[in-house]
């Protein structure tokens, strides 16, 4: 709707009330209209600028200083923080931990796709299975952390199950960096599978049912239906899930922080940043780290948008 259509619409019903009012009264509300949208936008814009844009600007500024976050004085250090970040291997190593979560999200998306496809056809107890798969996504992260801390404990749930099937458990699952990271990444699959699953399910269900019927008449089997109807139909959601999992894998915080506190090689980029900023008072260095993370995430999103343009897929 543009202004011209509004103007065109207005003269139609002026018959009864507008009769005696002089034209100046009609002009006044129009001048007001220039201000009115801003009255609605003041609060949201103030909040948006205060808590999103001002922090970004400040963060970039801090990243070139040696500020400790408390003292009134800070020194300009140029690109020193960035140099430190890229030359001290232990600061950069945390990025490799993201690799575990990235690998896990491949498993997660594949499994979610499988379950969404299976449950979009007629299956007994469908809503029960749907609920079970989705529910973990709604659970509090700290509660999940504790549930799985107990699960992986020496003599905990996992060991008990393993000994039940005749495999001698009793190992410290969170004891070595590799097994700890694999375990934690597994928890993240457990937690987030439901979200991908529900997104895929919604997308699959928005595909018109006649398409399957037509395919069935043409003799297509389930795999062919998946390959030629479902996969192209959910492409936008699929690509959204890919960006969400890449940026999610880079910014993992809750589960490892709650479960291991970042010990035994499970420290992630965000845990490190939080520690640098709030425990070691290295606000400058932490800001530089955060800027690097932000740039990587923006770059990933940009590349993804380039590769998979967000166009509507036409099926019919």
């Amino acid at each position, binding site marked *: 709707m543009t202004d011209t259509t509004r103007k065109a619409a207005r003269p139609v019903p002026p018959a009864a009330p507008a009769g005696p009012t002089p034209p100046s009264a009609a002009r006044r509300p129009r001048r007001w209209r220039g201000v009115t949208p801003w009255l609605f936008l003041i609060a*949201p814009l103030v909040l948006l600028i205060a808590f*999103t844009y*001002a922090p970004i600007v400040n963060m970039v500024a801090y990243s070139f200083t040696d500020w400790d976050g408390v003292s009134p004085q800070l020194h300009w250090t140029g690109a020193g923080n960035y140099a430190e970040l890229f030359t001290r291997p232990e600061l950069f190593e945390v990025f490799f931990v993201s690799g575990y979560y990235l690998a896990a999200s491949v498993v997660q998306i594949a499994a979610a796709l499988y379950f969404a496809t299976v449950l979009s056809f007629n299956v007994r107890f469908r809503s029960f299975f749907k609920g079970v798969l989705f529910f973990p996504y709604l659970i509090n992260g700290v509660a999940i952390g504790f549930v799985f801390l107990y699960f992986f404990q020496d003599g905990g*749930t996992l060991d*008990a199950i393993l000994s039940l099937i005749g495999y001698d458990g009793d190992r410290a699952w969170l004891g070595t960096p590799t097994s700890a990271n694999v375990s934690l990444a597994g928890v993240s699959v457990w937690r987030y599978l439901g979200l991908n699953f529900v*997104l895929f399910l919604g997308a699959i269900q928005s595909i018109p049912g006649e398409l399957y019927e037509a395919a069935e008449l043409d003799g297509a089997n389930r795999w062919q239906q998946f390959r030629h109807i479902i996969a192209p139909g959910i492409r936008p959601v699929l690509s959204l899930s890919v960006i969400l999992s890449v940026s999610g894998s880079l910014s993992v915080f809750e589960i490892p922080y*709650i479960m291991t506190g970042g010990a035994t090689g499970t420290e992630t980029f965000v845990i490190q940043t939080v520690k640098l900023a709030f425990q070691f008072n290295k606000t400058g260095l932490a800001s530089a780290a955060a800027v690097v993370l932000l740039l990587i*995430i923006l770059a990933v999103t940009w590349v993804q948008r380039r590769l998979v343009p967000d166009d509507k897929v036409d099926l019919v």
Partner: protein
Amino acid sequence: MTRRAVARALVYLSLVLATLVVLLPLTVVFLTSLKTSGEMADDSGALTLPDDPLNFDNYVTAFQDGRMLSAFGNTAVILIVAIGGTVLIGSMTAYAIDRFRFRFRKPVLALFLVAALVPGVTTQVATFQIVNSLGMFDSLWAPIALYMGTDIVSIYIFLQFVRSIPVSLDESARIDGANAFTIYRKVIFPLLKPAIATVVIVKGINVYNDFYIPFLYMPSEDLGVISTSLFRFKGPFGAHWETISAGAILVIVPTLIVFLFLQRFIYNGFTRGATK
């Protein structure tokens, strides 16, 4: 025909397996929450049943010593104020952007769009300084302001709905002498009910479960919300898994109840919230 039957059996097998993977860790924690510390010390294994299935002592301990009452209270205050604010702010923003043509409309829209790309965790180091300089650090206002201020998803959901409300409704209200605020209050807002339900659910679950923001901004013990209060169990209850388990179950049960009652709305809410 037999191949189909085998395929069907495999599908059910995979579903049952997934159900076990999801439910087993939760069930074991629930069983543990009913055990006494004596039973835990017996080392009888995680899968054994509790001797007395009606032993709720651990829940009492967790609730009282874990200060869960004040945690639920704080969470409730934050939930109500932050969600109320999000609904008002989101619907007003959507109304202003969709119904008015003003200078800088495109840049304003772009500001909201770009903000959606910036993950909150990355900017917390600097956000912290701003919250601190506004004097909101270590008060309930810090999470409330942050939850209200960064919610792009709800603005999108509202925008989607405002767009579907015919402009002719506004026009006829205007002819009856209503100004922009009256139109927003009397025409737009009541018609947004389905969008409001979606935002309340999606936002409510996020706020209830959030750990990062209350953990960073409200370190005092009196200001614990359910996540941070539960996290503090790690210290005093250390190896008392029966108490920790009871605390975890206490936090999960409200979510489970809400989920069972509002299932369909929750699915729709998340599909809408994430894709739009």
